[in-house]
Structures are given as structure tokens and as C-alpha cells.
């Protein structure tokens, strides 16, 4: 198998994978407490800063959420858009943040926030033990 064949096959698998979440509709998997594990930029992983080490998001079944970001806890609500493969988080002030779900499993969640400063940064979470 030539190098080019491997590259094209990998690209096809990567492209197809982005639809897997929406097709399976595994909505219940997100109901969990997700701890911030780190960031991945251009394939390189970065651990959270000291301020972020305790960060987490809890998605509840009643569509409310609790999050901790740099030590500050906030409550809000969320909408899970299966077709758009994103979660829209709304804080108490009504401000919305959209995060595309890159992948989700029982153990891991990868989000890409639709914010200019976070473009092309994968935010990795793992499930609380």
C-alpha cells in the first residue's frame, strides 16, 4: 500500500468520524461531570494551568449545568443540538457559548469552542471517577 493510499484512507476515516456522534445520537453520554484534562493544538497537548486544574463542567439531565472555570463556579443551562453536533451553553446572564462536540465517549469529551480566541484548540475533558 503506497503512502498516498494510506493518507487518503486516513483522511476518509477522519472525515467520516465527524458524523458518528450525530448518527448514533448518544445523548445520555453527556450527562456527567467532565474534568478539564488539557488542550490540544496542532496535535500537541498542553496541560491546564494551575488556575484551571480544578475546572469542570457538569451536564445534568434536566438541561442545567454547573461549571467551574479558573476557580469560579457558575450555573446555567444548555441545549444539545444533535444535528449540529454542538452544545450551546447559556449562563445566568443569558450569554451563549457554542462548543462543537469533536468526540464523546463514556470516558472522554472533546469540545472546540466557537470563540475567536479558542479557534482550532481542542479542549479535552475526562469523566470524573
Amino acid at each position, binding site marked *: 500500500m503506497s503512502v498516498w493510499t494510506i493518507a487518503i484512507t486516513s483522511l476518509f476515516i477522519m472525515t467520516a468520524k465527524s458524523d458518528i456522534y*450525530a448518527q448514533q*445520537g448518544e445523548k445520555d453520554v453527556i450527562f456527567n461531570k467532565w474534568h478539564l484534562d488539557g488542550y490540544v493544538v496542532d496535535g500537541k497537548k498542553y496541560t491546564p494551568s494551575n488556575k484551571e486544574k480544578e475546572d469542570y463542567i457538569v451536564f445534568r439531565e*434536566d438541561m442545567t449545568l454547573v461549571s467551574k472555570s479558573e476557580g469560579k463556579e457558575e450555573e446555567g*443551562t444548555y*441545549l444539545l*443540538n*444533535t444535528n449540529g453536533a454542538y452544545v450551546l451553553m*447559556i449562563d445566568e446572564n443569558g450569554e451563549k457559548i457554542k462548543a462543537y462536540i469533536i468526540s464523546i465517549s463514556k470516558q472522554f469529551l472533546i469540545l472546540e469552542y466557537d470563540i475567536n480566541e479558542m*479557534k482550532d484548540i481542542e479542549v479535552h475533558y475526562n469523566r470524573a471517577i
Partner: protein
Amino acid sequence: MKEIISILFAISSCTFCFSQTTIDLKTVPFEIKNENFYISKVFDDRQENYLGVIEGNKLHFENGTDTTIKKFMDTTLPKTNDRIPITIRINNLKIEQAQTSIEERTARVYIELSFYTESGEELYKVVHYEDQAFPLSDLTEINETHEQRVRAALEYCLWSFIDHQTSNTPNNLIENRNADKANYTLEESNPQTYVPLGKWFNMLTFTKMTDRYNEGWNVAYTGFLDSENDLIIPFTLAYGQSRGKLDLVRERGYSSVNAYALGFGFNGFIKIIPSLYVDLGLNAPIGMEVLRDLAGKRSTNFLIGLGAHQGVKIILWKDFGIVIGAGLFQRWQTSKIEKRNFGFELELGINF
């Protein structure tokens, strides 16, 4: 001969028509628990029968907009005997894409849906933009994902309707989830009205500047996203040269002075009427001044400064055309000839 002319006429008529592109809405059911309604009818109230025009192609659903959306709704909320029938009217549904920054293209779906009881009572209207940003060159992926954004917009509308009914109607028609938790709104109290996705302008311009001490010119590339109401912040890259006027240069003890500068700046455009903009700018030219004294000895001087300009700009045609501008400028810089200066500028260029 007549047949040939008729054929040529038919062919050229066809080239001016839009070609059609069919969008196939995939079936991706999403879970809505404990719902006691279903969508019984969908009506398309729009005047146009297409979804948008992208690069000369009219987009439409193969089986019609109302039938396609009804099928989408049936997949997630199938009819059962114990469910209440709800009617949807499609007030607006548009697919767009445009360059929205120097390195980004935005694809967008705009949707307006109204929900009614079977007797015709309006329950809720939702207005929503579903947008997604892509790198500038990603046209293929944009075209392939229009249908996903339509599905995402439809799902958003359903969730918005469900949450609105839960939070705002005491004797709500649709009983749902835990009403205590519904303390947020997905939509603002005043629904958004449709604003077209802005058009990106590229301009190449030549500017002639004259003031008391210098004559100069400047070439620039400017790119900006048009907006009817907001202050437009364009991206500008410019290069210019100016030459000191001979009599004044000699007064300062030089036979010639030439300045070469790169300009990095912030401009603001304010659209007054279509094609007419007020242009306000601040820039920081950085470059070099090359001086030759009366004995012919050459020296250089690092040039840094601050400049401002105010003017008007006329961009005659949207897609490709002429740009004409005029304005005033003020400048302070570390010049050996004159540190403070003001003058006039005339601009001519093209947009594409």
C-alpha cells in the same frame, strides 16, 4: 441561418439562468423525551421556491421545502394517537455563504418558523441564525454541509418551541420536563430580523498626496466586510513614498529628500448610503528617509510617525468596479525636513 441564431440565442439565454443544486436533508433523529405533540402539517409561506443562491447555483430541496421539513419532523416526533397536532409555517429559510474576514468564510442558515395549534392559534415564533466559520478555501466542505446546518437550525427551532412552552405558558398546551428548571430563554424577547450576510470587499488603490512640504503616493490593499449599520474595520496594508518639494528641501540644506514607508493602521468605514463611505483612519508609518545634502553627501534617517486621515470613498459597484476617494490627512513623523504636516489626498482604485 435562422436556426443557428435561434440555437445561439437559446444557449446564451441558458447561460444567464441560475443552475440548480439539490440539497438532500439527511435523516438523523434526535431524542426528545416525553413530548406530547407532533407536527401534523408544514406550510411554506415564502415567496421564493429556492433556499439560496451560492455562486450562481440556486439551492433547493428535491421534494419541496414543506415536504422535506415535514419528513424531518416526522422522524423525531412521529404521530401517535395521544399526541397533539401542531402546525408549522415556514416564514423564511435562507442558505448563504460569504467571506467574512481576511482568512475566513462563514456559511449560514437563517430560519423563521411559526408554530400553531390545529385551530390556527399562533403559539410561538422562532427566528434563528445557524452559522459556522470555515477557512477561506474550504468551499467544498461548506457546500457539503449546508444540509447539516439546515438540520441543526430545525432542531434548534424545536427545542426553542419546547422550552418556550414550558417556561412561558402556565396552562401550556405542551406539558414537558421540569418547568422549575426552565429559567432561561433561547431567543431574545425581540426576534431578530433578517440581515444579509455581509459582502467582503477587496480593494487595490493608488493615492496621490500633496501637502506644503511633500508630494507623495501610496498603494494599498484594503479588505473589509460590508455592514449597513456597524462600524467597519478593514484590514489594510500600504506602501508609500514621498519627496520633499525642492525649494523647501534646499532651505533645510538638502538637495533631495525621499521617504519610503510601510503603513500599518486602523481604519474605520461608516456606510452612509450604498456605495458611499466615510473613511476615518489612524496609522503608524515606519520607514526610512534618504537625504542628500547640497554637497551631494547621502544620509538616512529612520522614519516613524503617526498619521490620521478623514475622507469619503465611493465604491461604485459591488462585485467589480472603480473606487474613488478624497480626503484630508495629518501627520507627525521623525523627519529632518518637517515633523508636523497636513495635506490633501486623492484616491483611485478598483474593488473586486
